[in-house]
């Protein structure tokens, strides 16, 4: 029934009929508008991440899809039929909650079988499916334990299969990994992604962690202040950010604001060719796209800079370099204990990606 998404970089082709379609959705609590004009589609078998800072409305959007909140306006369709008029218990959507929400009075197996029992499946089938589900996450040994007796990571797995065992058409995940420590979290990211490919169910995953979003998603929908900033594949959103906000929120970047005249952009002493029209232009230049100057001079923008400080990032080093005219750029360089003095640098004009200006709220992060 579902097409299993390949680990490709491109977005799911838009021609495929979307499983979930959100049209012009808006939500306000009292006079506060939490979501404005959200239109979004989720394809069969797609892993879509809704990424945003806290307060961006991402959880509200998820809760509206699940049916715990109702939208102020707009509509949601699933498989072409209205979804937003149904109560949550009639939607073929299941949710993995942020704090798992396992039933404390039921055993692990009873928790997993809850939805099947409610659906009045034959006892035998409930038992088999629960067994398979527990086996899938290697939790068979804990079938008879109460949730309070198992660890956070194990509870997380149970919450996941409790939702998956019902074979929903769409699985919603509300920051399910945020309560786990870093190591377990990375491990679960991989597990979750491979599980999603295995079962072929569409996932809508909410997170505030951009790295998590990049690792797992087919597409990322970046929410900002209740509006969609950009919806694209992780690679596209990283390499071709549409706005200054996107460029800064996803990864680390240098924002260059310059003047464009006759196809040449100028920012301080740096000049490069661009396709932008004349006027003011804003460009995102990733630190890793600025390199030590090589012998080959063709079509590169070259400049000298003085190293102000360096920050160790394991495999790489993030350098703060001051150019002759005072402009400070972040540069990713090979790990080396002492970066000192002046260096000759270059970047290719194509890597200075023009972005739309957006009111910058996010402090530059290192």
């Amino acid at each position, binding site marked *: 029934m579902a097409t299993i998404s390949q680990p490709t970089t491109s977005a799911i082709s838009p021609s495929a009929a979307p499983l979930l379609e959100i049209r012009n959705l808006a939500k306000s609590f009292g006079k506060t508008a939490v979501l404005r004009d959200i239109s979004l589609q989720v394809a069969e078998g797609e892993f879509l991440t809704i990424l945003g800072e806290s307060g961006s409305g991402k959880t509200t959007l998820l809760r509206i899809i*699940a*049916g*715990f909140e109702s939208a102020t306006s707009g509509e949601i369709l699933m498989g072409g039929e209205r979804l937003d008029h149904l*109560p*949550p*218990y*009639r939607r073929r*959507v*299941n*949710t993995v*909650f942020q*704090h798992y*929400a*396992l*039933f*404390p*009075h039921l055993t692990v197996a009873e928790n997993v079988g*809850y*939805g099947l029992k*409610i*659906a009045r499946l034959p006892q035998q089938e409930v038992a088999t499916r629960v067994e398979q589900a527990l086996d899938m996450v290697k939790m068979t040994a804990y079938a008879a334990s*109460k949730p*309070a007796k198992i660890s956070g990571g194990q509870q997380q797995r149970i919450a996941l299969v*409790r*939702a998956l065992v*019902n074979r929903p058409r769409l699985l919603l995940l509300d920051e399910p990994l945020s309560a786990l420590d870093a190591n377990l979290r990375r491990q679960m990211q991989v597990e979750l992604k491979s599980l999603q490919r295995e079962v072929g169910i569409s996932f809508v995953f909410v997170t505030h962690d951009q790295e998590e979003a990049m690792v797992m998603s087919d597409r990322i929908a970046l929410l900002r202040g209740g509006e969609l900033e950009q919806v694209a594949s992780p690679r596209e959103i990283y390499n071709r950010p549409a706005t200054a906000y996107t460029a800064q929120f996803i990864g680390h970047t240098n924002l260059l604001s310059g003047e464009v005249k006759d196809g040449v952009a100028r920012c301080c002493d740096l000049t490069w060719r661009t396709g932008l029209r004349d006027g003011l232009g804003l460009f995102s230049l990733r630190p890793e796209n600025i390199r030590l100057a090589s012998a080959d001079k063709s079509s590169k923008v070259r400049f000298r800079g003085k190293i102000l400080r360096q920050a160790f990032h394991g495999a790489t080093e993030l350098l703060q370099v001051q150019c002759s005219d005072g402009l400070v750029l972040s540069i990713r360089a090979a790990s080396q204990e002492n970066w000192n003095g002046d260096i000759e640098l270059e970047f290719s004009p194509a890597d200075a990606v023009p972005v739309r200006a957006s009111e910058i709220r996010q402090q530059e992060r290192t």
Partner: protein
Amino acid sequence: MLCGRTLLSAAFDFDFMFSRAYRAAITAPPLLWVAVFLLAPYAILFCYSFWSVSSSQDIVRSWTGDNYRQLLQVNVYWQTLLRSMWIAAQVMIFSLCLGYPLAYFLSFHAKRKDLLYQLVIIPLWVSYLVRAYAWKTILGSDGVLNTLLQYVHLTTHPLDFLLYSPFAVVLTLTHIYTPFTFLPIYAALEHIPRNLMEASHDLGATPFQTFWQVIFPLSIPGVLAGATFAFVLSLGDFLAPLLLGGPSGIMISNIVVSLFGAAYNWPLGAAISFCMLALVLGLLFLSESLEKKWSFK
């Protein structure tokens, strides 16, 4: 400055705070209080329950089990005890039936929680006697209820089963003890994480199924605590039966009161008291262990 700091560090001398002497100093007064004013009187009464009264109304301090035997053999005693338990059981059931829906509504659906909560609590500030007398004026033959019934011609004569009957006792005690069942149930319901209900709905359960599969099982400790409150408090009540019970509504505490008072038979009174104490302690123990079984913290 220096002086101040020294004083401060002396006041927060942690070695001293956790020393044996310190712990003894703070635990001794309450322990002494309990020993002198609770345990000692109990011990004395316990001795009394094995003594007897002579025909000249003197306490005879020789050990005998007669008092306990009388309790079992004299009909009026064990029948009254049974009736008291029956009345207490009715009060328990009615106050659960009133308290649970009220607590549920307040916890899950009420808009002005704090206000409604106060409305439930405020009657507790009114004197017990006032509330009991209020029912007397409502239920009496010239009372509010009978006057109203006759005024609208539903009845021609005053209904006499309303007052001075077990009915009046059950009604009054239910009114008085419903807040006591409401409170623990409300607390239990308030402690249920709301995302559990969302999870239940999410997994396909209707609100009705969610209530029976999730909410009710998780509120059982509160129900047990509330039921215990209502039963134990009503079982030992003597004012409501005294004021509203009449001869048919007498409860075991009334007998104990008269044995200690007018009848001057302290030994028998003590024996009945200890039977009740054993009964109540047994119930508390049972309810405690059941509550433990149903809590999942």
